[in-house]
């Protein structure tokens, strides 16, 4: 802002802010790409790969992420420690059950640049399985990032007025419809 003094402007430009993102019903890959951009500092016009101007990112509700397709069953995370017989392959569902933050952590790790700054950026990423955040982090948070995926509404979340306003496409044979009584002549 041009109304700031020089020192205040300097501080505002180079400060490391704390950003929050809610991962409920979101695909972990999209969350991870948003996190990686912010951790590297690529959203700032003063970006340089050596200048370490990335922000802190806090991801909450990682337990409630939503994979598209059948990825919970099909996606496999493999690891090998180097010792014989230690090749482990876990599906995304098994991985998530073991550690609810692991999927997003691995996704962000894979999206960051493969150099020595990656580890420091991963230290600046905080993952929490539920929306319970510690006090000191809550006090540091400055901004909440918008969710990448629009969560669709369940049928139970629509009000009766919205349901009535939606036209019937065909004449149904349903007994639940209200009807006016008819005089039966026998």
């Amino acid at each position, binding site marked *: 802002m041009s109304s700031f003094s020089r020192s205040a402007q300097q501080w505002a430009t180079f400060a490391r802010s704390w950003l929050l993102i809610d991962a409920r*019903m979101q695909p972990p890959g999209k969350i991870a790409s948003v996190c990686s951009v912010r951790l590297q500092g690529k959203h700032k016009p003063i970006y340089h790969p050596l200048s370490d101007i990335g922000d802190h990112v806090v991801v909450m509700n990682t337990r*409630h*992420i*939503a*994979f*598209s*397709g*059948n*990825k*919970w*069953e*099909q*996606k*496999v995370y493999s690891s090998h420690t180097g010792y014989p017989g230690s090749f482990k*392959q876990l*599906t995304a*569902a098994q991985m*998530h*059950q073991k550690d609810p933050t692991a999927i997003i952590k691995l996704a962000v790790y894979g999206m960051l640049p493969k150099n020595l700054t990656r580890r420091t950026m991963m230290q600046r990423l905080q993952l929490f399985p539920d929306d319970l955040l510690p006090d000191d982090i809550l006090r540091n948070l400055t901004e909440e990032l918008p969710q990448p995926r629009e969560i*669709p*509404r*369940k*049928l*139970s979340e*629509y009000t009766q007025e*919205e*349901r009535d306003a*939606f*036209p*019937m*496409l*065909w*004449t*149904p*044979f*349903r*007994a*639940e*419809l209200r*009807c*006016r*009584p*008819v*005089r*039966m*002549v*026998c």
Partner: protein
Amino acid sequence: MRKRERARRRARPGREGVRKGGRERMKERHLLLCRWVKFHIAGSAIYPRFLIGQGAVNTHCGYYECHHSCITPSGFRQAGKCLKRLFLMNEIEGVIEPTSERPQPPNPTASCPIYRWNLQNKYNYTDVLLLSQFIRSDGGMLPQRITGLCAQEHTKIAICVQMAHRAGLLPDHKPPLPVGHVPKPKSNPPLNRYLTRYSVNSVKPIYKTGLKWCKKRMSVGHSALKNNVRYSPKPLYIKH
């Protein structure tokens, strides 16, 4: 067919047996209807509207109103047969009532309801208000001959309904549990998913994905919906 014939023969008393009078038969029919059916053929001027109910059995005239405990297909069929018999024996008269004001479809001459409303490539698994019009209360699809959908749209709607069920967007359309059945407490809470093409238990993990030129991809969404209208410049991404 044979079972029905046998049941009919058993139900019908033989010539030696006592024949039931008209009122007794009416009572039976009435009980049947009250047990099974809240019956109402709705809607347009084409179908006459009947409303049958718990009135006093002796009075044949007056308003009848039925309450139902469950609607089953066999119940519907039974009620329909009873109504037809009553109608043919001139015990009911159908009065065609004028319907309430409803919005008119922009293309009324088409045979399929989707084409009537010009929604051909415009719906998705998230349009739950549309999909709920073509499903039963336990979540299954209604048959084509009832809804009037054409074959392609019927399959597309069925696919979208399946995807909506798996995404948890239709929580009230679950099949009813057997009476007295207590569901076991699940150790893992259900995982959130969307655009799932295949059934959850049928899919195997991809242990070896393969090289870039022959990678085993994970499919998302369904290719039947590939012609849907897209308002963003990015193409539809089915193979992840």
